[in-house]
């Protein structure tokens, strides 16, 4: 390898490393942002910003006219956590948690609660089965 080309390749490597570090930072920022907005969007009762371990507020997904209020709710958990959420709906349908394959009916104007251990890692849809309408996305991190 000639000297100038060595310099060029080293510069390339440097540029890539910087880009990588930048990307890495982006990634973790986005993660935390997503988690907080997820909790806010889905928690209708808890508006207190808690930095210490909060008493587990069970997020409620409100369904109006067959669609989730505030868009698809994002629920983040770590493997081993207990996944808890409630769906309050103005239409009768079946709430289906994909992957975990849990399904419970909800009557019009009623609500249904889920509680199960987060023992499969990945990203899962929660859907109103009959309307084929996604209402939440559950993320289980390792």
């Amino acid at each position, binding site marked *: 390898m000639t000297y100038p080309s060595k310099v060029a390749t080293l510069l390339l490597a440097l540029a890539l490393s910087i880009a990588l570090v930048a990307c890495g930072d982006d990634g*973790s920022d986005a993660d935390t942002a997503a988690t907080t907005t997820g909790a806010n969007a889905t928690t209708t009762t808890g508006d207190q910003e808690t930095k210490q371990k909060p008493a587990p507020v069970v997020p409620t997904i409100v369904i109006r006219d067959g669609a989730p209020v505030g868009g698809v709710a994002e629920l983040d958990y770590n493997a081993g956590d207990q996944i808890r959420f409630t769906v309050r709906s103005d239409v009768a349908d079946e709430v289906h948690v994909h992957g975990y394959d849990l399904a419970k009916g909800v009557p019009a104007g009623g609500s249904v609660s889920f509680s199960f251990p987060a023992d*499969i890692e*990945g990203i899962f849809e929660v859907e109103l089965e009959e309307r084929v309408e996604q209402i939440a996305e559950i*993320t289980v991190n390792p």
Partner: protein
Amino acid sequence: MSFWLPTAHALLARSDLPIPAWLFAWGASIVLIVSFFALSAGWRTPRFERDHWRPLGAGLSRVLISRPVQAICGAIGIFLLGLAVYAGLEGTEAPDRNFALTFLFVTCWLGFPLFSVVFGDVFRPFNPWRAVGRAVGGGFALIAGQRSAHLSYPEALGRWPAAVGLLAFVWLEIVYGASGGIAVGLSPHPAAVAALVYTLYTLTMMALFGVEKWCQTGEVFSVYFGMFARLGSFAFDDEGRLGRRRPLAAATTWATVPGSLAVVIASIATTVYDGAQEGAFKGAITQVFEWFADAGIGLTTSLRLSATIFMLISFCGVALVYLIGVRGMASVKGAPPLAKLRSGFAHTLIPIAFAYLVAHYFSLFVFQEQAQFTYLLSDPLGTATTDLFGTASGGIDFKLLSANAIWYVQVGALVIGHVIGLVLAHDRATACWGDYRQAARSQYWMLAVMVAFTCFGMYLLSVANA
């Protein structure tokens, strides 16, 4: 507006988590270190270009190409295609409960590339269209007493029909299945209809140009799976003898047919698009979709249009990166003509294409094959009334793979694909340039191309589903 793109394949209930930043950084660092090592430790004469094909046992060859074995394999292929079409037409419209979609788009589409790399071109004997074509051709010869005459295939067209067909197939799989502005994924019925249309088209082309000629150039699946078979070491020679050679050696002669570059670029681009639509392109696709929708175009058409545009952008982007690399190599002293360089390095992208496939579809394949061999096998129509093999109540164990296992396979595949791509490119350069020093210099360009593809692949994984 109720709009979203599917977080993953419509088939699958579990999507992969994005790879974490630390793994991205490690993967990319390893890629760079390996690449610089490759530059300094390269060999000086081609090792794969002039490798000899060595026959394996003659008895085994005779059995494998014997008429009964060929007929049985062909019949199995025809039966399975027929079953998939039947299930698609008559079975449930629930994509995950119907045999058709998983069999065509997962078991075959993802399974054959894998098996082709390991065992050679295994699709060829099971190719249902080839089997029908050969049977019809044989029947014709028997009755007419002469072999059927064919048009001469325009050689300049080469593998272009396969490249276009490849894009069309993936377009059908991941773009066409939109409804009311929602990418719900392809349903079984249209998939079955598409399979019938493709069958008609393929048999017509085989009648016009000859069965083997069309399999080499235009039949999408023969060309696509055959490309991956070139990475492995088993192959039949022209006289139908089974043999083996150094792995990767067969890849060096793959791209001599025109249009081959388009095939390998299409195969990378379609995987790029499928990965990017879940993350990197998601916002942009939504934006373009909204423009179309606001302009008064129907929601379904708008979504198909915007997705099609980004699929074509992926194709052009992949092509551009490669062509810049070729252009750069051409500037090195003693370079062969540009056209020769362009096709000359096309085969170095095959391992990248394979690595992208593994990275994006590994978990889908592992999970969905459990469905294939349990309830989809016993209850192909998804009617919940049949249980052919007693496995209809089986299901997918989503705990089989941890997130970490998936991540390591994904990044590992990209890194290994990168290394193999570099090896092939270096080998070709030593054959193109008589002077070793110039050959090494030309490889800075291919190195940049490979690093770009590999790091972009990892980037896609890091933002997928995020």
